[in-house]
């Protein structure tokens, strides 16, 4: 397991040494938290939804993780351009290990970002419903991070173009985020939107965080776990296959 450890450590070191990236990644979630939280707060309250920050914070935490996780895939393209990818590809390690090592590192970074945003949301008025559930909330944050880091990494393994990656990512990330129940509750929606939300893996992540942090769940925590877990395994399998296929 030393192999997974060094690969994980490498990514954490790179993250730690790149402070601008750390701070830059927090900008968008904080904007959402403040602008939407305070902007829609009064309307949400009038509609009888209660405190909007209370609803929004778990969603924005999930969003932070989604963004950080998916974008960590760019490191694969980065490594390809700077040549380091070759070093790992000729090494006598299985492609699953490469996939796992990269994903664990990226996912840890994403969870750290998520924790920072969650902590900041406490400053703007969010209250965790039950502190005992906090470790479980962290577990689900990690599961969300794993799934989307693996997805971002798998997609990046097929690309060589530095410029194409952010475009493709935004094209995938935005619908995932907006149609996940992070910004509005998944109740009483038009059928079309609801169906899309049901097919959106992030919906189950957001739902799990709502359950763990705010005490409300649409799908139930069992279903959330089953969907996220199964998808994570599937993406790992596909990702390892794609790494097997990389030619340099």
């Amino acid at each position: 397991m030393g192999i997974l450890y060094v690969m994980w450590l490498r990514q954490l070191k790179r993250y730690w040494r790149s402070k601008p990236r750390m701070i830059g990644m927090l900008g968008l979630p904080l904007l959402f938290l403040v602008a939407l939280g305070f902007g829609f707060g009064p309307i949400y309250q009038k509609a009888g939804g209660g405190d909007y920050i209370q609803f929004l914070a778990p969603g924005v935490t999930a969003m932070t993780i989604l963004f950080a996780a998916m974008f960590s895939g760019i490191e694969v393209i980065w490594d390809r351009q700077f040549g380091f990818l070759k070093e790992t590809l000729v090494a006598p390690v299985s492609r699953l290990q490469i996939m796992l090592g990269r994903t664990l590192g990226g996912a840890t970074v994403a969870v750290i970002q998520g924790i920072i945003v969650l902590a900041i949301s406490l400053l703007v008025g969010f209250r965790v419903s039950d502190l005992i559930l906090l470790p479980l909330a962290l577990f689900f944050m990690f599961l969300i991070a794993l799934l989307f880091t693996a997805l971002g990494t798998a997609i990046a393994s097929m690309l060589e173009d530095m410029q194409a990656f952010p475009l493709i990512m935004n094209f995938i990330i935005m619908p995932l985020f907006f149609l996940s129940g992070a910004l509005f509750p998944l109740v009483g929606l038009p059928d079309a939107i609801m169906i899309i939300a049901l097919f959106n893996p992030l919906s189950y992540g957001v739902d799990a965080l709502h359950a763990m942090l705010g005490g409300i769940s649409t799908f139930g925590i069992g279903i959330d776990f089953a969907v996220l877990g199964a998808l994570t395994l599937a993406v790992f399998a596909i990702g390892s296959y794609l790494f097997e296929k990389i030619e340099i």
Partner: protein
Amino acid sequence: MKRAGQKAAISVESLSKKFGNFTAVDGISFEVASGEIFAFLGPNGAGKTTTIRMLTTLLHPTDGKMKVNGFDPAREKDATRHSFGIVFQDPSLDDELTAQENMEFHGVLYGIPNALRRERISYLLNLVELSERKNDLVRTFSGGMKRRLEIARGLLHHPKILFLDEPTLGLDPQTRNKIWQYVKSLNKKEGMTVFFTTHYMDEAEKIADKIAIIDNGKIVVQGTASELKKTTKSKSLESAFLSLTGHHIREEFSSPKDRMRLDRKLWRR
């Protein structure tokens, strides 16, 4: 090919690689005996690096057979990867890590036990005179320092077969000498097979047991340095090389950026 895959460390039979219409390697055959030091020479863009990429599982051949340490790099990738080490022609270090961290990463990846790893890292960093800078980020290194670190890293695990793709490019004679001495001692002590490319003919002549010259994707001639000089009636390996491959300057496809451009055009379906 006689006793293919038996005692030979590397055996290659009518190996070809095409990128679209461009044939980079065109049906080459050769054999490297176990424990031999083999020089693979040729002008820029002759197909040296492409051949190494195929032998080291990074590129799938279009046609032909190859065996590295008895395994097929195209099919038995994992077993092949356990058999070799490589120093790439183009950079493959992590700039955001320190020299020490780059070495550690490699050592763990290749499963070198902790104590041995530490000992070898400090020995090799000393050998390439980077000990004092070992805790600096690689991004602050000069080109020559990066090159030295690449080589030190490639020598960290002692593989059965070592590929060196223009390892000494841009290094001063002192460093070149030291590195070749070390490689030769590994070759003697551990019977490590060495497969290298270079543009320094004196290097090939001094170090290689056998030499093959490749041009336009085809092997023009192979043999010992003295055999090559005899067949071309040349005084030095350099003039033998020039008389075999001509005097005009070749178009270079092998710089990483060019290659990437070429690849993007050609192998994305």
